[in-house]
């Protein structure tokens, strides 16, 4: 029985780093997988002893993609501790900033970070523009920017780059792999959208900045509410937001969703056989409050809850006290799972095992990751867009069910099934990627409603943006949590406050849930479980591994940011500085 190890390092297309070690048998089926990665550490050290009203400004330094999410979570953890309910305008503004992050993040993820696992860019050069235009009408009545002349231009542009040797993205994937299933024309359509999305993502980034003040690291949230008072009272700003949002929504509906359906049909076998399903345990904290009854009481756009073993008929209520983190396989000391209020972070690095072939391998029976293993009520769970859609359906949420049903019906129609595609198809790598697209469309639509609600509320004379509180009184002895959904999944910040100062602080980020190593009972984390049973066609091109891990939108940003020149000879670019002794 020969066991071969495949190491993929790094695996993300952005932020931080993550390595996956997969063990395959003689049939190239993955029998074991280990995810090892770096995580952000130290926010608790930095925040201890600070004024809790300032915590958000530092907590946002955890990450640059979800910077606003950490900022908001931190502020809401403190608001929860102080028992503050923010005004309606503040709630809507926060929803809009967060919603903008979702649609931006999801579109960029699909096209620029994950799309090339499905779309063969080089093959697109063989695509016939006229045929591709005809193809595009199969997926959308009004396809986005893929007329024959558009596509001729796209091809010219790509060809020019390849000729110039400006290979950038062309040089670093597994082009030509058998794992790619789209036709040249379909690849051409998706490639055109890849380029167009690059331009359009700027609009979505502006959406975040309109009410956030700046991106990255917005500045407009405070404990008690928001500070963008002028922006919400300025009809021109509201109109600008709406215009940009509509433009981006148009792209979502006429490019992103149709492309997803097109890929869904081509890769449907991988969905139906459940490739990449993994744990099938899903958890959401819930997010986007729809009324003003205060934290954890409001009706939510994404309900909170837990679904176990893919059983959509039973929704288990979510209870934050059942969250714990275990460090059995993580480079920290600790002997039992702890709730984040009592969390500890004491590094204990034990290294990798160097083998004769020059590679370093993890020691699977020992510690092998910087990420802790979060556990919910003695279950390993997956978080993210798929979890939100699954929990929404299990909760009987009307809006989520409608969007999910519509997509499955579209897929069923294109496949000629005569009925919707089965919901179980969502439990797969393809399904995870589809869930993200479904959620994007839902979010874009609901954001328009929120903008109108905000404008109407301000017009009615409610200009309140901040709830007053007596700091000295509420901050004597308090604890609170900010639990919500970042684009990548459930994100929680827990804070304990004593005599006006932070006593303890823990953040558990979405990628911790998904990218975590095994736990004290040797149960796998979500990435690890999702890889088991997958067949790798060519061990030198482990595209199947990348596809599944990328489908979670991995972000281990909470690591170190440094430009790595990887040993390239660059000495002639050294800046000569005079000695300054």
């Amino acid at each position, binding site marked *: 029985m020969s066991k071969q190890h495949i190491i993929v390092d790094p695996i993300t297309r*952005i932020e931080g780093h993550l390595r996956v070690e997969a063990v395959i048998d003689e049939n190239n089926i993955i029998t074991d997988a280990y995810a090892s990665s770096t995580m952000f550490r130290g926010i608790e050290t930095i925040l201890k002893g600070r004024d809790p009203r300032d915590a958000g400004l530092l907590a946002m330094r955890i990450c640059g993609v979800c910077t606003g999410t950490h900022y908001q979570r931190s502020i809401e953890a403190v608001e929860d501790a102080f028992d503050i309910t923010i005004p309606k305008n503040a709630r809507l503004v926060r929803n809009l900033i967060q919603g903008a992050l979702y649609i931006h993040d999801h579109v960029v993820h699909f096209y620029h970070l994950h799309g090339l696992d499905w779309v063969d860019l080089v093959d697109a050069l063989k695509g016939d523009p006229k045929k591709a235009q005809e193809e595009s009408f199969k997926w959308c009545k009004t396809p986005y920017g893929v007329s024959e002349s558009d596509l001729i231009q796209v091809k010219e542009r790509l060809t020019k780059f390849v000729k110039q040797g400006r290979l950038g993205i062309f040089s670093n994937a597994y082009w030509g792999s058998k794992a790619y299933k789209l036709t040249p024309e379909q690849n051409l359509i998706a490639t055109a959208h890849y380029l167009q999305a690059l331009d359009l993502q700027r609009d979505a980034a502006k959406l975040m900045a309109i009410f956030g003040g700046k991106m990255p690291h917005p500045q407009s949230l405070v404990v008690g509410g928001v500070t963008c008072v002028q922006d919400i009272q300025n009809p021109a700003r509201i109109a600008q937001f709406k215009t940009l949002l509509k433009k981006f929504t148009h792209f979502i509906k006429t490019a992103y969703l149709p492309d997803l359906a097109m890929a869904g049909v081509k890769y449907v076998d991988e969905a139906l056989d459940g490739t990449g399903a993994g744990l099938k345990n899903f958890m959401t904290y819930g997010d986007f409050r729809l009324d003003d009854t205060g934290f954890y009481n409001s009706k939510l756009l994404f309900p909170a809850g837990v679904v176990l073993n893919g059983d959509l008929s039973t929704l288990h209520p979510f209870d934050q006290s059942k969250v714990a983190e275990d460090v059995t396989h993580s480079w920290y000391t600790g002997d039992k799972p702890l709730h984040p209020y009592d969390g500890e972070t004491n590094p204990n690095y034990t290294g990798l095992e160097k083998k004769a072939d020059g590679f370093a391998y993890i020691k699977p029976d020992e510690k092998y990751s910087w990420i802790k293993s979060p556990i919910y009520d003695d279950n390993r769970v997956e978080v993210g867009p798929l979890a939100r859609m699954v929990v929404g359906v299990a909760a009987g949420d009307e809006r989520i069910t409608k969007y999910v049903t519509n997509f499955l019906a579209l897929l069923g129609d294109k496949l000629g099934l005569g009925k919707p595609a089965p919901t179980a198809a969502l439990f797969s790598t393809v399904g995870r990627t589809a869930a993200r697209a479904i959620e994007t469309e839902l979010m874009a639509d609901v954001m328009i409603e929120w903008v109108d609600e905000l404008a109407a509320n301000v017009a009615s004379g409610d200009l309140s943006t901040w709830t007053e509180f007596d700091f000295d009184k509420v901050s004597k002895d308090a604890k609170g949590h900010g639990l919500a959904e970042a684009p990548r999944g459930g994100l929680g910040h827990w804070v304990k406050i004593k005599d006006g100062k932070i006593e303890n602080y823990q953040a558990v980020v979405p990628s911790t849930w998904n990218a975590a190593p095994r736990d004290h009972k040797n149960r796998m984390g979500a990435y690890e479980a999702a890889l088991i049973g997958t067949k790798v066609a060519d061990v030198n091109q482990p595209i199947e591994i990348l596809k599944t891990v990328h489908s979670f939108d991995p972000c281990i940003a909470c690591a170190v940011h440094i430009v790595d020149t990887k040993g390239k000879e660059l000495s002639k670019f050294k800046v000569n500085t005079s000695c300054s002794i």
Partner: protein
Amino acid sequence: MRVAIVGAGTIIFKDEGVGVYAQKYIDNNYEFESDVTLVDGGVLGFQLMTYYQDYDKVLILDTITMEDEVGSIYNLPANEMLGLGSYKQTAHEVEIVEMLEICSVLEKMAEVNIIGIIPEDIISVHIGLSDKMKEKFFQFVDAAMAELDRAGIKYKRKDEEYPLEDIILSYSNPQSEYKNGHQANYQL
């Protein structure tokens, strides 16, 4: 010519904040005659794409790894970095370069230079700089200014210096000025 100077890095890992401090130092100590935007990029990810697209020239101030001594300063043209942020099995992810690669298929992309410095300590959880970084800090700023000179950007130093110590302090102890409610005397 529209210029963006982006300071990148995680300020809570000691020397990793050097790029962020440097952009703030330039912002507080220089006046520009032309269109120059200073950006506290911090741990920015995708947003880099927007700068690469919206500006003619972009300077990224950041820490770099290199076989050289701590405090060495480099001015790396983007083209030299392409091909490094790849899918291959390497030990590190380079998101700044990754974004360059993605943007290299655009019709128009900024001329990008990475002004990099080799850090001493990016492991400690501490907001501030090591002595070695402090010693080299002004040369790091000068390297960025020299790149602006080459591009013909005119600027002058302000009369009064806003010291590095104060900049680090403003980051290590960010105080929300709205702690006790928003200021009511704004102008619409």
